[in-house]
Each structure stands twice: as structure tokens, then as C-alpha cells.
């Protein structure tokens, strides 16, 4: 199961899961005798115009589909990052205060406290472009040009030691040639197989175990906010 192919070609397993869930018990609601598909189209709404679609259609897939034409270098990205990103993410992407770290942590996925960053954890470079263009900077989303986004992604590759050359230019042509270190680190949900033991057995009702021992108590950590001191109700 733990192969990149399975993760990318997820439709098969997804279909299985959906079919399994639907076939496991009574259907949630009976299908209408006349399906909506057999009815004439309702004719509601209007056709979305190509320019309207283009304005919102910024998503990018791992295979590069959706990448706009453009380019940016590590150096350019460094400059933009220090102006628009470093206040939260730190000069080197290490994260300021509680804000997310974007670099570092490679090889820590089996550690007691893994450090999940773009370099150590993310599988696809496309996600960085898509997410930055869509949602960053936090509080001023969708304010970056395509070239600025390419430059920032190039700089993030540099911060994560995936690209060493300061003069490296990332563009829509060479984008998909770059693989992230954890590209093969994901696999499709396998709970139905790997955790099969949680299904089907009639659970024990009497004298099921020895008297339990309490091993951890939340009140000893003392990190629970005082429930009585919630925000004021107006």
C-alpha cells in the first residue's frame, strides 16, 4: 500500500471505501424513483465565463497541471521572503515564536517529536506554489504575483537544501523536475485492512481484564484552561 503510485492513483481505493461504507448497512435514504439525472436540466444559474473561471482557477496539481507561465530565482525569493514572510516564518524559515517552520527537520519523521516542514514532510512541490498563491501571506492572501510565487518557492527549496545555487531559477518548465525528499512518504488510508481487528469481534462483557492501573492523569499536567473563565458573553 505504501507506494507513491497508490497515493497518486487514489481513485481505486477511494471507490472501495465508499462502496464498503455504503454496502455495509441500510442505505441512508431511498433513491428517488425518478433520478434527478433523468429530469431535464433545471436551467438555474448561468454559464461561467472563461475570464471568470481564470480569475479563481489557480490550483496546481503534482503533475504541474495549473502552473501559470512565470519564473523566479532564489535570490529574488529571498528578498520577497524577508519583506513579506520572515516576520512570522523567521529569516531562515525556522518559524518565529509559535508560527510554522518551513524548513529543517529532515530525517525526524521517526523521532519522538517529528519536525514536519516542506523539506522534511511535504510530498509535492506543487502544494507550496498552490498554497502560497492561494492563502499567503496570512492576512493578505492572493496578493502575490505568479513570478513572486515562483521566486518564493525557489527560495524555500534553497532554505531546505534541495536547491543549493542562489542563482537557480524556478519556472513553469523545470518545476515538475524537482522532487521533494518525502515524496514517497505517503500511502492511502489502509485502516480497513491494517486495523481489521477492530471490526467484527463480539466484544467481551464480563471479567474482560485485570483491574486497570491509571497511567496518566490530565490534572497532573495542569494545562487545561479554567473552564469557568471563558470569554465574556455579551
Amino acid at each position, binding site marked *: 500500500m*505504501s507506494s507513491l503510485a497508490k497515493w497518486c492513483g487514489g481513485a481505486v481505493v477511494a471507490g472501495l471505501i465508499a462502496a464498503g461504507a455504503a454496502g455495509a448497512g441500510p442505505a441512508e435514504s431511498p433513491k428517488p424513483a425518478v433520478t434527478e439525472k433523468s429530469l431535464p436540466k433545471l436551467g438555474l444559474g448561468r*454559464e*461561467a465565463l472563461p475570464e471568470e473561471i481564470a480569475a479563481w482557477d489557480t490550483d496546481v496539481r503534482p503533475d504541474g497541471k495549473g502552473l501559470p507561465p512565470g519564473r523566479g530565482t532564489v535570490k529574488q525569493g529571498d528578498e520577497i521572503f524577508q519583506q513579506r514572510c520572515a516576520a512570522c516564518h523567521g529569516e531562515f524559515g525556522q518559524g518565529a515564536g509559535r508560527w510554522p517552520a518551513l524548513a529543517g527537520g529532515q530525517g525526524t519523521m521517526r523521532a519522538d517529536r517529528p519536525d514536519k516542514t516542506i523539506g522534511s514532510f511535504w510530498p509535492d512541490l506543487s*502544494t507550496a506554489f498552490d498554497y502560497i498563491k492561494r*492563502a499567503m501571506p496570512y492576512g493578505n492572501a492572493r496578493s502575490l504575483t505568479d513570478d513572486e510565487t515562483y521566486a518564493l518557492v525557489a527560495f524555500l527549496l534553497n532554505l531546505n537544501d534541495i536547491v543549493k545555487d542562489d542563482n537557480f531559477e524556478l519556472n513553469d518548465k523545470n518545476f515538475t523536475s524537482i522532487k521533494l525528499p518525502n515524496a514517497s512518504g505517503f500511502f492511502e*488510508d489502509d485502516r480497513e485492512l491494517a486495523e481489521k481487528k477492530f471490526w467484527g469481534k463480539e*466484544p467481551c462483557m464480563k471479567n474482560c*481484564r485485570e483491574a486497570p492501573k*491509571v497511567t496518566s492523569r490530565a490534572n497532573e499536567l495542569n494545562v487545561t484552561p479554567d473552564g469557568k473563565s471563558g470569554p465574556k458573553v455579551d
Partner: protein
Amino acid sequence: MRSKAVLSDPATPDSPMGRRSFLGLGAVLTGSLALGGKPAIANPAQESPPADAPWSQSIGAGVVDRPYGRPADTEASVIRRNVPWLTASAESSVSFSPLQDLHGIITPNGLFFERHHAGRPDVDPAQHKLMIHGLVERPLLLTMKDIMRFPSVSRIHFIECPANGGMNWRAAQMNSLQFSHGMVSCAEWTGVRLSTLLEETGIKKQAKWAMVEGADGAHMNRSLPLDKCLDDCLVVYAQNGEALRPEQGYPLRLVVPGWEGNVNIKWLRRIKLGEKPWHSREETSKYTDLMPDGTSRGFTWLIDAKSVVTFPCPEKPLDGPGLYEIRGLAWTGNGRVKRVDVSVDGGVNWQTARLHEPVLSKALTRFSLPWRWDGRPALVASRVIDETGYVQPTIAQLRAQRGSNSVYHNNSIQTWQVKPDGSVFNVQLA
């Protein structure tokens, strides 16, 4: 009159049904047939009431004194709360529903848990549009007025954040029902089946996946298999009879029954059909589950069966020995709850609880079991079984499978420790 009503209540031990269940309960839960305590009788004070209170002698506020009603002033502590240390900002954060104070299966709209990634936007419904495009015959742009003309449906479903209970993966951390389980809520949703909207655009044969996206500053986007979209997903504009609350996606959100809260995109503005998933940030960096070998599960959409005792709980201690009703909630993304068992000795012995109607698919389900507490220490827990035969696991079973770093999908059995003074604590057992 009042005392008679109490005595004839079928839940008291004096009715035949009640006595049977109490005898059974005494044997199983306390290991003794001797009931010990006195039968429940009305408080003598109720038989000779005190003098009339002021509200019995005067005129109250008139109608439309509160054009939009609100709870009694004495319920002021029944509110959503957050954990300030949990996140870097309140705008990309979560608030928890006060399950300890709620009854039934419907969460009041003002208490439904919140999870935003860029705050709660104020969306103008007159300007809001839903775009459906990609592998469709005819890309569509729909206004709210258009959407409300489509054939409508209403369904009751829970939404649970997959991080609900995530703080308890390593150890019992939150000494509170609200903070350990409050990222689940349940509502009646009204809107349009997603399949109705997609069929209006005409789905191209190659389409296998849908990307759904919000209109807020996070523009959260997730990939969903088309099968699920056409099965039971809803595009809703109403919640428990009124327009969605702004924090729940006003004017339009997606409801994906039984699947992790994150895919229930709020302020829904765009649906794009494609032949492959997008691997967006919320399905790679987040909402993937790290396993002990360093690889991660992706697309763990389904919420497995889960239950929790909502009384007693840390916020609602016991008031001395005697009769109580252990109460709780159970739910499963697989469909219906089939059974809930309750233990008061940390899982040595179990007794099957009563399920309260309605028991709906992918909705919260109530359960209860009468309990005569003898004042001794107890370990109270519940265990749900759903209609697929899935049995809610212990935290030890889950950790053996997944380690402690998978962040999401902690659906383990919750144990509350009851101390002789009646106080209640979140604990984990070995």
C-alpha cells in the same frame, strides 16, 4: 402531585422495568446484589414548597423583549471555549462545544464548535457566488438566489474535527470533556444535494475527483472522490432551521456526512472536477497521519466509531452516593450506531446502555444507563459498536497500531476516574 410524578417515572426503581434494570445493574456494575442505598423518593422539601418567589407574583417581560431569544442568564457558563496555548493565533484556531452542558443530539447553533484557518469572514450573500467548472459539460456560476431554487433536502449529521482528542494521543492531557471531545457537533442541515448541482453542469466521463474551495482568506481546498460527492454530500445554506451562522460558513457550506470536518468546506465558492486529486496543503502537510515507521496515511477521510460519557465528566462531578444516569454520545462515519456499552470499573465489566431515538446515520446518538454510585472510586467509560461491526478501540490498541504522532483520528475509549468525593478526572489506563 409532583412527588407522584417522580415516583411513577419509569426510570425509578419502583416501576417493574426500573427495578429489573437496577438489579441487573447492581450485579454487573458493582459486583453485588445488595442495592444498599434508599430508593429514589421525592425530596421532602418539594412536598411543602417554600414561599412564592418574586417571579410567581409579578409580570415578566413581554413578547419581542428579545426579538432573537437567548438562553437564561443563569446559563451564562454554557459557551464555546478555546485553548489559548494550542495555536499561534485565534484566527487559525478552534473553539470547543460545551458537551458537558448539552442534551439530545442537536447542537444549538451558537454553541457549534468553530474551526477557522483565516478567521470568520463576513460574506455578503448578495455577492457570494458558487462556481462549478473543470471536467463538466457546462461550467456554472450560481448566486445564492439560484441555489435556493434547487430541490432541497434536510439531513441531520455530525461534523467532527479529526483533531478532536488529538491532545490526548500521548497521555491524558485535557482535564475537561469540553476540551477533550468538544470538536464535534451535530445539526440539521438544509440545502441541495451536491449531486443535483453537479448533474446540472453535466459531469464529463473522465471526472473522478472534485476540488472544493472556500471564499475566506484561507481559500481552503480539498480533493474529494466523485463517488462520495454523488453519494450523500450536501451544499447547505441552513442549520437547525435558520440560515447558517457566519462561523459555520454563511451563506454556503459543504457537508460531507461521516467524513473529517476539514473537508466540510465553509463559505464554499468553487467546485472543480478533475481526473486526479490535487494534494492540497490540507491533505498533505495537514490531515495526514504520521505512523511509527515515518510514513503517513493520506486521505483518512472517514470518522471511525467513537463515544464519550458526557455525565459524569470533569466539569460535572457527582453529588454524593446514590442514583445517577450515566449519559453520553456516540457517533460513526460508517453509518448508524448499533450499540453502546458502559463500564464503571475501567473495562473489566460492561453493560449495554439504552440508545435514545432517533438513531440516525452519521449523526450523534444519545445513550444512557442508570447507575447507583456506592461512593467508591470508579472508572467510567463507554464503548460503541457501529452497524459495520466496528468496535471502538482503547488508546493502547490505537497506539500499538499508530504510535503517538498521528495527530488526527483519536477515537479511543475515554475513561473518567471518579474519586470518593465525587470529583471526576481524565485518565488513561494500562
